[in-house]
């Protein structure tokens, strides 16, 4: 029953939503609208589940004094404080919540993202070697696109930006379309397996 009920719900809802796509009747649209409203509500509940999980996970680490428990305490305390500030003092443009967001969270996230520039430089230097014809073509295309999209690319040759755009719009798009068609088929097959109950890993473990 523990596994049969979720599989049955998945089958019924999955098949009905596929059938719904082909029926433009108002009854079908109302059904679709109701299911979508449920999805929004369920997603909101998932947030509550996530918050609960953070408390349980980090709470256990603090209680058992596991290595790094201090950081778990920082996590819980900062989460609670920011939530209280947002709930009681508002989240508008001039609020303390917004100031914390812009002056603490934003720079931290931007710093992590900025690491990408450094990692890209070291990865490119380490890995971009013209070991074969294919890697040489990769390098050549990368150089043309990088230089073509820079402001002074147009001063090197007036048609360089156009050529760079052609590389993005023709070979790049052709290869992406091919990969995306393959991914689409894979995703359809996986979704079909889930709806029909062939794929059950999302339930956790095996029968």
């Amino acid at each position: 029953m523990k596994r049969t009920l979720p599989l049955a719900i998945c089958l019924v809802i999955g098949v009905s939503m596929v059938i719904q796509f082909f029926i433009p009747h108002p009854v079908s649209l109302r059904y679709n609208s109701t299911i979508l409203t449920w999805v929004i509500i369920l997603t909101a509940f998932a947030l509550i589940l996530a918050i609960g999980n953070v408390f349980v996970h980090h709470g256990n680490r603090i209680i058992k004094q596991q290595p790094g428990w201090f950081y778990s305490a920082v996590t819980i305390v900062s989460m609670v404080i920011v939530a209280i500030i947002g709930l009681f003092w508002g989240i508008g443009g001039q609020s303390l919540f917004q100031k914390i967001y812009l002056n603490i969270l934003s720079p931290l996230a931007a710093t992590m993202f900025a690491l990408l520039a450094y990692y890209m430089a070291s990865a490119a230097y380490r890995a971009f070697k013209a070991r074969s014809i294919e890697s040489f073509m990769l390098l050549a295309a990368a150089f043309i696109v990088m230089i073509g999209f820079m402001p002074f690319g147009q001063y090197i040759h007036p048609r360089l930006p156009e050529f760079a755009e052609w590389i993005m719009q023709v070979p790049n798009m052709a290869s992406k379309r091919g990969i995306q068609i393959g991914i689409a088929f894979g995703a359809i097959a996986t979704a079909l397996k889930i709806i029909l109950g062939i794929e059950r890993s999302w339930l956790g473990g095996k029968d």
Partner: protein
Amino acid sequence: MKWHERLTGIDRRIIYGLLTIFIIVPFFIPLKLRENIMPQTKKLFDFMESIPPHEKAVIISFDYTPSTYPECHPMAVGLLRQCFKRKIPVVGMSFDPQGPGMAVDAIDYVVAEINRAAASPGDSVRYGIDYVYLGYKAGFEAAILEMGENIASVFPRDHLGTPVESLPLMARTKNYKDIAIALIITAAAYPDWWVLYAQSRYGVKVGAGLTAVMAAEFYPYLQTGQFTGMLSGMKGAAEYEELMLRHNYTRELGKAERGMNSQSMIHILIIAFIIIGNIGYFLSRKKK
């Protein structure tokens, strides 16, 4: 270690040090290079120019996070500025939990700028009449679909808790039929869902402002006409700022245009390192 082997083994710290210098220096010695405008940027700008004022609203979905601030935030500011100056109503929303922080920052900045320069009350921008920010909603797929029938059923209250029916703009903006275009500013794949649900079912036009990495994935949508224009990364943001400058929406260079100076220098540095690495690699192979 032979000199050609040193070329393939440059310490990471030297690479990172040079990178830091090349990023910082252009902020103090700006290069006055004007952007070459890409067709997709021009297409979006021209469409925004063609929207009649005071009629259909524009949806701007702020779905980017602080990590992509340098690329996405100038796009948001540029689009908001153009809408407010042309008196095109704006309906803002977010489907990323970190989006509201960015949205409030962008909207407050542009509104303050316009209201400071307003010569009369008619020139100023008023909440509820010229723009509304509906806040964050979880379950973006369902929300995007449902808005085709009724936006208020997805967002019954705005970001600050005000009932949406009490806002004059939302009283006349019921669903996608009252929307000129949906603009999605993001570093994720949200535009996929907008095209799949909002456009294919309800026919609403879609435009996007994306990070450079994501933009490459969405070129097919440009070619098929499913996107009415696209801004790609900081370059796209800089191009839009350039267009805003040319059309007198602003009098000075924006953040993206200044950031492009650093980006151009870093590109040169990376190309140089790749060439050095390859020279070292070929010479080492030859010696062996």
